[in-house]
């Protein structure tokens, strides 16, 4: 599904290499986790894949179901089925959450040549999905993420994911800023979306999230590369011993 080969990325503004040859393949139905110390390039990977400006790909490739992601605009990647749950969801004053969701959903459908969802059907679907994430009518009406708590913002990300039904979901530190209950709620939301056709890439610092969203594969990223790959036990190892041992081992 998602295939990343020898991806090299620099910051556009300054001569700084962030990713130095990332190789990663996420198969449909699987949950891959990426862990790693601060500054290892985890978030950059998610931004580059989703199409944020400011990064220059100097080598390698990334494809989604064989389609070249790096050649697409951000919106085309979304329509192709890629979704990034932001670490810091952006506040957009003046744009209602519902308007935003419906615009996004129908823009994607239109891009894929599908029929747009009617206002009535949309309302029905969004209400049902919001309910399971404990998102109330007021949150749906308010401007996108404005005045939302940390937990509300993350739940809102998952709601978008649930509405857009992407093929490939990247979760960038979705656990940051969440209390235990919120983490549980968000994880349940994610788990509800797990199915055999959908891939997940979960970026996190902590094992904690992976207790709720059980990964099939765990990667350790350091200094712009995947340095170690293993099963769920690798996450436990990090939790117990930190990154130092692993990094020494691979150095």
């Amino acid at each position, binding site marked *: 599904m998602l295939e990343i080969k020898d991806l090299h990325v620099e910051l556009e503004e300054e001569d700084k290499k962030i990713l130095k040859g990332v190789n990663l393949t996420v198969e449909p139905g699987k949950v891959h986790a990426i862990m790693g110390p601060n500054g290892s390039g985890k978030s950059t990977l998610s931004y580059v894949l*989703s*199409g*944020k*400006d400011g990064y220059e790909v100097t080598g390698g490739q990334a494809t989604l179901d064989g389609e070249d992601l790096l050649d697409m*605009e*951000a*919106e085309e*990647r*979304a*329509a192709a089925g890629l979704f*990034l749950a*932001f670490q810091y*969801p*952006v*506040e*957009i*004053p*003046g*744009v209602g959450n519902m*308007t*935003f969701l419906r*615009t*996004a*959903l129908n*823009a*994607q459908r239109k*891009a894929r040549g599908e029929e747009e969802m009617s206002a009535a059907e949309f309302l029905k679907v969004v209400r049902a999905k919001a309910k399971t994430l404990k998102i109330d009518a007021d949150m749906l009406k308010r*401007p*996108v993420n404005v005045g939302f708590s940390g937990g509300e913002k993350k739940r809102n990300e998952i709601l*978008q994911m649930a509405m*857009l039904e992407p093929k490939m979901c990247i979760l960038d530190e979705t656990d940051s800023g969440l209390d235990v209950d919120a983490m549980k709620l968000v994880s349940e939301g994610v788990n509800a979306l797990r199915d055999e056709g959908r891939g997940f890439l979960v970026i996190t610092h902590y094992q904690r999230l992976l207790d709720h969203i059980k990964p099939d594969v765990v990667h350790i990223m350091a200094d712009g590369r995947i340095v170690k790959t293993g099963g769920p036990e690798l996450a436990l190892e990090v939790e117990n011993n930190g990154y130092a041992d692993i990094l020494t081992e691979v150095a």
Partner: protein
Amino acid sequence: MALPQVNKVKQDATDARLAGMEMPDGAAWITEARTEAVNRVQAMGLPHARDEYWKFTKPASLVQPEPEAAALFHNDEGPLWDDLDRLKVVFVDGVFDAEASDDLAGEGLEIERLADVATKDIHWAKDLYGQLEAGEHGYTPRPLAALNTAFATDGVVIRVSGKVSKPVNLIYLHKSETSDAILHHCVKVEEGAEVTLLETGPAAARFNKVLEVDVADSAAFHHVRVQGRDHERRAVTGIFGRLGTESTFKSFTLTMNGVLTRNECVLELTGDDAVAHVAGACVGDGTDFHHDDTVFITHDAVNCESRQVFKKVLRNGAVGVFQGKILVKEDAQKTDGYQISQSLLLDEDAQFLAKPELEIYADDVACSHGSTSGAIDEEALYYLRSRGVPMQQATDLLVLAFLAEALDEIADDSLSEAIYARLEGWLERHAS
């Protein structure tokens, strides 16, 4: 010795303009008002680019004897608020069109044509026509408004005595490429009464309009205006309002292109607990777009609230101007004054010029003002695009979001929905 030269140039320009104008016939009271107005024009001189008050907007095309021609505007969107129950009053190039208008009658109001009122020896409009325009309003000369008072032959004169639910819609059609229209409206909203005035359309090649509004105690005046879209007009408009105790004045204007538009609004809050809101949303695309909002609000009573919200979205060399002032007189304690003027510059060629001013003589007031210019929020744009919203649509969403604070000032949803639709249409037409 620059000054005497400017004065000479101004005097010559004023004489040249006045030479081509003829004062209309009328009853003694209006002839007196018109004569006084001519005297004011002569004393002030018509505006010149060197005048401080016209620093950001070139007045020449508004002053010169003959107007610049403007291509006729074809409205392919149909009339605005077409399905709204409203009293239509149509002016074609500044002349009342009885055929196209509804009967000038409505429940709770008297409405007359200025041309008819001017012939009556006794009329209540005597106390309003030219009176608010002539007021001191903060010592700033407004000679084009005085010119209007002196030479306007048409307009409506409305007296509102009850709570009128059906809005009055002044519809301005433009059918002659060189029309030079002057309209003068007077609205008197009597104690406890309420009315909504709508204005739509391109009006003329050159348009000089004055609206004088006297809002009595506990009365309310609502005003929503949509100036002709993508039209080559050159327009100067002046709203002059006086607010009584516990009265409300709310005005919103949408401007979508137009070669030159100067909208002035001069309000005096003379009764305690009055509320005045003035808002404007404007979108401009291209070097032949210049839009100027000039607002002057005087607080002269206790515990009044005023709010100015002006938003401009500009690109491709479009120029936006905001000059806004809140004057709080010595006895106007507990004043709550708010003023915000913001521009969203979609590229580096667009320009926004702002001159926000506060002048406060009372010591127990809350006044704030802010003015900003900024580019589109790249983070928000990326966020929207990452959800599949294409660049243009995402930009338009953010543009509408930026304008929302001004559009929110329209209290009536049925009016604002249509305005949103027109804006969306404009944005589509002007997709980059």
